[in-house]
């Protein structure tokens, strides 16, 4: 019985709507026990978050989500600067490796400016939603349904970016990057998008200046990051291939239509 249940979670999608029940711990104890058996070697080290909901529903499918939230104010500020003005970043772009046991892992975001995190994408998405609400309202088209539509659009854009990046990784041969890394990288454009929407609130023609700048910056950021990710996970004879470069350029180009689609809110 338990063997069957072990195989099943890998095929299922993780439930997107959590059902937290703070009054009864029985179910979560059982669920995380099963899942822990299925994980095997991952075990205790990666189930780092304290809340049982996180343990039982997400941690087996993604890598440890706790890692992406170890941020502080300084990291957030510097990372925002890197995202918006990547050409001013003087340092290198590679992630610092952390030697913990035999597994290759990277230092958490507090110590490494180049590490991806999930706090900034989440907050940037929230900011985008709020600013979209303001824009709709100032044009007189606000209604909660319209705002929900914008949320869906934003989520779709984010998912599209994630799939694009993940597909690129698969196509170019390396498939070891954790999914949450791609989710984080796919969420960074929302910083630029939010800025674009904000500027558009102030003066609608400013968008035509800010948006290309935003797109180019995001393109540079993504290309540099992806290049490093690819290089760390590919075999040496495949480096410097032109196919790689064309695909990276494609990622940068796709930012333009994405930005345009998401910044155009209602009007």
């Amino acid at each position, binding site marked *: 019985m338990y063997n069957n249940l072990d195989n099943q979670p890998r095929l299922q999608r993780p439930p997107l709507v*959590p059902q*937290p029940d*703070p009054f009864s711990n029985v179910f979560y104890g059982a669920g995380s026990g099963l899942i822990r058996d299925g994980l095997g070697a991952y075990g205790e080290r990666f189930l*780092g*978050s*304290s*809340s049982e*909901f*996180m343990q039982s529903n997400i941690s087996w499918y993604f890598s440890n*989500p*706790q890692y*992406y*939230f*170890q*941020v*502080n*104010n300084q990291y*957030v500020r510097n990372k925002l600067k890197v995202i918006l003005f990547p050409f001013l970043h003087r340092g290198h772009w590679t992630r610092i490796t952390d030697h913990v046991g035999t597994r290759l892992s990277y230092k958490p975001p507090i110590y490494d400016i180049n590490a991806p995190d*999930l*706090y900034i994408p*989440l*907050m940037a998405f*929230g*900011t985008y*939603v*709020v600013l979209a*609400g*303001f824009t*709709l*309202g100032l044009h007189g088209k*606000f209604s*909660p349904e319209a*705002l929900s539509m914008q949320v869906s659009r934003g989520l779709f854009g984010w998912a599209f970016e994630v799939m694009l990046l993940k597909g690129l990784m698969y196509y170019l041969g390396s498939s070891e990057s954790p999914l949450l890394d791609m989710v984080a990288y796919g969420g960074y454009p929302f910083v630029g998008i939010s800025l674009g929407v904000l500027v558009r609130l102030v003066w609608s023609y400013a968008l035509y200046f800010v948006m290309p700048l935003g797109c180019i910056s995001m393109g540079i950021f993504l290309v540099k990051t992806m290049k490093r990710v690819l290089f760390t996970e590919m075999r040496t004879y495949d480096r410097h291939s032109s196919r790689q470069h064309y695909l990276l350029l494609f990622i940068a180009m796709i930012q333009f239509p994405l930005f345009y689609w998401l910044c155009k809110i209602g009007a």
Partner: protein
Amino acid sequence: MAKEFNVPPVVFPSSTGGNTSTIGPNQTGTHQRRIPTFTPPFQPSNPNPTQHLPFMSFDVGSATASSSFSAPVFSTGNGYSTGMGGGPGSFEDELPLLEELGINTRQIWRKMRSILNPLKVNPNLHADADLSGPFLFLMAFGLFQLLAGKLHFGIILGWVVVAALFLYVVFNMLAGRDGNLDLYRCVSLVGYCMLPIVIFSALALFVPQGGVAVFILGAIFVIWATRVCTRLVVELASCGDEHRGLIAYACFLIYTLFSLLVIF
């Protein structure tokens, strides 16, 4: 039936079974004759087994045959009037309704007053979370929106749930292992700190729509709500102090979203 028993027979193997010759321990031989049926000593002669009869003693001899029929009537009458079993007469003994539902109105009022002061925050009051205060606030919010012509009850409920989940996820992820904010308390906090937005929606009824005043008022109330919520979350969950700015931004987003409902 015509036999005479001194006492319900205690069978000792050594005794010579002299029922009639031995005198029972009560020395009341005459009473023994009146026992109508032969029952083992520990089983009560119960004419109606569903009634709660307070069987006083084992010496059934004291309950004479004549009174053994009237006694059940009296005892069951006593039983009902003293609230045994909660029959139809015992209304006074139930708990008051609000207490039974767990709604402590005095506590709600105290918590409300503590939120009304934006500068000083008292986290001990909010240590025990309850959802009835937030429910009241959300109803009031919906009511004021209704007065403004917008039917937003379901939307408010849905948005509060999503916002509380958002804050729960962000806070627990940021705080790491020590984060002990559970979802119930999170919903309770988000709901209580909604009070400034409720006041804002009441005031926005009197301010011309679309003017600058609404935006300025909105900004003030949103900052008030954010401040209170951040402080409460950080102090109640006892470990989020170094992430205060990050949590504050999350709360700010939540309350700005609700103020959008009011302004537009």
